[in-house]
């Protein structure tokens, strides 16, 4: 009965410290992965490591079939830009893996290994909600709330401003080392309608070594 009650719930206890997600991720992944073009600079921090992923996005890439990448885009151009997340993708050994909307990422996380962590908390929160007649109040936050808050924003970036957050990509569940990745994110100049393709390439094996 308890299993039935908690199934379908997914909540997640974010890392309990005051550092921002950017600070935590950039501290853990020391490899500098960045590119720039036309006064637009992009940094990427792929969260491939299981422990790092579990702590910061609640699920491992292999269990969820989804890779979370922390992306930061600085717009130093004269005009505002639009980061085209819908047409962003990962190339893994030449194979294309499209980006996922935050809502799809939530569904994948809920189907992944996030559930056992705190499904019970949601259940207890619900019981508390009935008792008090108030909204659900749990010590933890749902995966949905966490992903909505931490997903990349804003996608429209004013001049001399930046956008940052998590971008989610489909990912192979097979655990193999040494894969070559290219993260591709198109950026549209709103004034000229010119598209700048920002690409960062890295090798999984080299990245893992530096994380350890």
């Amino acid at each position, binding site marked *: 009965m308890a299993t*039935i*009650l908690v*199934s*379908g719930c997914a909540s997640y206890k974010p890392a309990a410290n005051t550092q921002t997600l950017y600070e935590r991720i950039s501290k853990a992944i020391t490899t500098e992965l960045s590119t720039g073009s036309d006064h637009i600079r992009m940094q990427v921090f792929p969260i491939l490591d299981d422990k790092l992923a579990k702590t910061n996005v609640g699920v491992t890439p292999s269990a969820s079939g989804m890779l979370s990448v922390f992306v930061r885009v600085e717009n130093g151009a004269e*005009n*505002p830009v*639009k980061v085209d997340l*819908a047409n962003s993708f990962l190339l893994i050994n030449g194979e294309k893996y499209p980006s996922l*909307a935050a*809502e799809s990422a939530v569904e994948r996380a809920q189907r992944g290994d996030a559930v056992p962590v705190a499904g019970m908390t949601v*259940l207890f929160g*619900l019981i508390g*909600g*009935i008792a008090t*007649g*108030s*909204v*659900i109040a749990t010590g933890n936050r749902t995966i*949905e*709330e966490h992903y*909505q808050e931490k997903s990349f*924003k*804003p*996608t*429209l*970036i*004013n*001049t001399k401003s930046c956008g940052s957050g998590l971008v989610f990509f489909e990912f192979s569940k097979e655990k193999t080392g040494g894969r070559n990745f290219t993260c591709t994110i198109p950026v549209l100049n*709103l*004034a000229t309608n010119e598209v700048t393709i920002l690409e960062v390439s890295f090798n999984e094996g080299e990245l893992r070594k530096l994380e350890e």
Partner: protein
Amino acid sequence: MRFLFYLVALGISFVMIAGCAAPRLMSSKTSVEFDLGQKKLASDDRFAIHVEPLATGKSISDPYVVGEAKIGAFNVRDPIRSDEPLNIILTNLLRKAFSEAGFKLEEKEKAQYVLSGQVDRFWVEEYATGWSPEYAKASVRFDLIIKNREGKFVWVNTIEASHRSEVSIDATEHDIATLLTAAKKSIESIFKNESFWKSIVK
């Protein structure tokens, strides 16, 4: 006797399914009261703005579908429809909010600012498993671009908000209100953003 049994079974089935339909978002009955905070344009400082209809992004396959209800005892999924495209509903809410904030709504030729944008999400759904109390959850996300009359960018941003209803036995009755609250919060966030006012009132 058998007839009576079938009649009772039919009655129970009817109670479990009938009367349970997804709500419909009727734009004529859409009433949203904005809380725009302290910042409003003074009567002698009313900027004229033209609000163009927002476009819909690729992520929206049907602009007349704004969510998914889970109805009846079996939580059958049923789309929540609106009588107007969701981008028009949101555009009208934006017009109302800008008017309440002291802007004068004008035709494009007469306006100092032109607002345009694109809706990427305008959606409500329910957490309903059949085993625990339910709630409705909605999220609204759209890009907003404000240009001056010379076509120069004044302010751009991605506007986003979500809302969750109180828990209840049946969340369906809260679906529309939850969606409208998320829309209201998203629009209010524009006027609570300091950079917006700094860009407009120079």
